[in-house]
């Protein structure tokens, strides 16, 4: 499936060459040069090694199409690849403990070179989303998730969707801004279940 995506990158590059002015370097050349420049401009520090600058195909395509229309075929491919990568819980259960989920949603640490790699990461949901109404300090990059479960119904299907969306958001909307928490090993399966409960447990403050 990676081959398909690579094929699409090549087509994109060729198109850019055709429209590009004869003297200016092509878009693909600039991209290659920028990547090279970045590799020479960063130092490994703590847990943040230089391989973090190596983009996977999803990151490459999403960088290329930021601010432009994402062709339907490219979007579908990104979603397919990422959806297939999701590891569903072996016990078939999606709901953990919302109280623990609330703590995880509040915490923002994890994977920065200044963070202790031995400590668990947070999900930092409140950085971008409104959730429990008691928390006033929430961001607006993502939609409000207040009354998420109450509005949609506490169905098994929705629980599964939320679990998958947190595991790998790119599977549900290509070039989503949300980190792929499971796919990139930011959160554990148990942590994701707790965050699912924060959104989907009828007792969670999110649904009050």
């Amino acid at each position, binding site marked *: 499936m990676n081959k398909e995506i690579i094929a699409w990158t090549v087509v994109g590059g060729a198109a850019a060459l055709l429209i590009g002015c004869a003297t200016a*370097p092509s878009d693909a050349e600039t991209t290659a040069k920028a990547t090279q420049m*970045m590799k020479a*401009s960063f130092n490994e520090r703590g847990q*943040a090694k230089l391989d973090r600058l190596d983009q996977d195909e999803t990151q490459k395509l999403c960088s290329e199409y930021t*601010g432009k229309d994402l062709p339907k075929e490219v979007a579908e491919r990104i979603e397919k690849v990422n959806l297939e990568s999701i590891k569903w819980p072996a016990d078939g259960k999606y709901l953990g403990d919302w109280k623990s989920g609330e703590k995880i949603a509040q915490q923002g640490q994890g994977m920065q070179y200044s963070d202790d790699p031995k400590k668990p990461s947070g999900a930092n949901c409140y950085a971008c989303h409104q959730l429990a109404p008691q928390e006033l300090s*929430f*961001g607006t990059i993502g939609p409000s998730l207040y009354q998420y479960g109450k509005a949609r119904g506490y169905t098994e299907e929705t629980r599964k969707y939320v679990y998958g969306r947190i595991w790998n958001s790119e599977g549900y909307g290509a070039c989503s801004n949300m980190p792929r928490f499971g796919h990139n090993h930011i959160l554990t399966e148990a942590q994701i279940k707790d965050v699912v409960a924060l959104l989907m447990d009828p007792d969670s403050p999110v649904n009050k």
Partner: protein
Amino acid sequence: MSNPRWRAFARIAVLSSSLAVAIVALAQTSAVDEIAKYRAALQDGNPAELWEARGAELWKQPRGPNKVSLEKCDLGLGPGVVKGAYTQLPRYFADADRVMDLETRLVWCMVKLQGFSEADAVKNHFGGPGRKSDNEAFVAFVTSESRGIPMNVAATHPKEQEMYRLGEKMFFFRGGPYDFACASCHGVDNQRIRLQDLPNLTTKEGAQKAYSTWPAYRVSQGELRTFQWRLNDCFRQQRFPELKFTSDASIALTMFLAKNSNGAAYDAPAIKR
């Protein structure tokens, strides 16, 4: 004495009580308004002036193995011209055959004029508690000499144009375990992280507002922070490795943002929470 930052002082007491009211009322929009008022109150008595004064002193001091001052340093407008120099940086310097931002140029002058080794010149580039940074003092002084002057980055030299294009690519480069690019947080109008407003740096207005207010005294850190620091800390939060001080990538991104801010009246060193 006409400095607009020296204004009414007694507002802070009023503010803290109204902040409390806002929180009790669970009124989030007014909480944001109150933070804006807090920021306005901070404008009075900006400790960045302490850095500006120290930088101005250091600028004139004979230093380094060659025992000369930086008064002959060419920041782009000729040797010794500081007034307005920051508003035209980054730019291409023929003597170095490189596009340089202010901090890179200062390091160049410390090496070429004062005889410091490269390693000594970049040492302690960001200060910390009990560890004052000369770099931050120099930057505070030089930028203060551009206050009120419109940003005017030419980017006409082919190498400047290339830096701009590379900086633009970097801005949209998604990577790392969180898939973040600069654009993830700074590509849309009117968004926030928690209660922190995010400038949309892809628009002229957003870039102008952001770029013209760095460097800044960060009240939460008790330090004056430079634009190199701002980029460095963004990449830390992006979960990238550490951006090297005065690296090409840091200059490219600065070029992209500085040029996009052209026309803005430069207004720093500022003060931020």
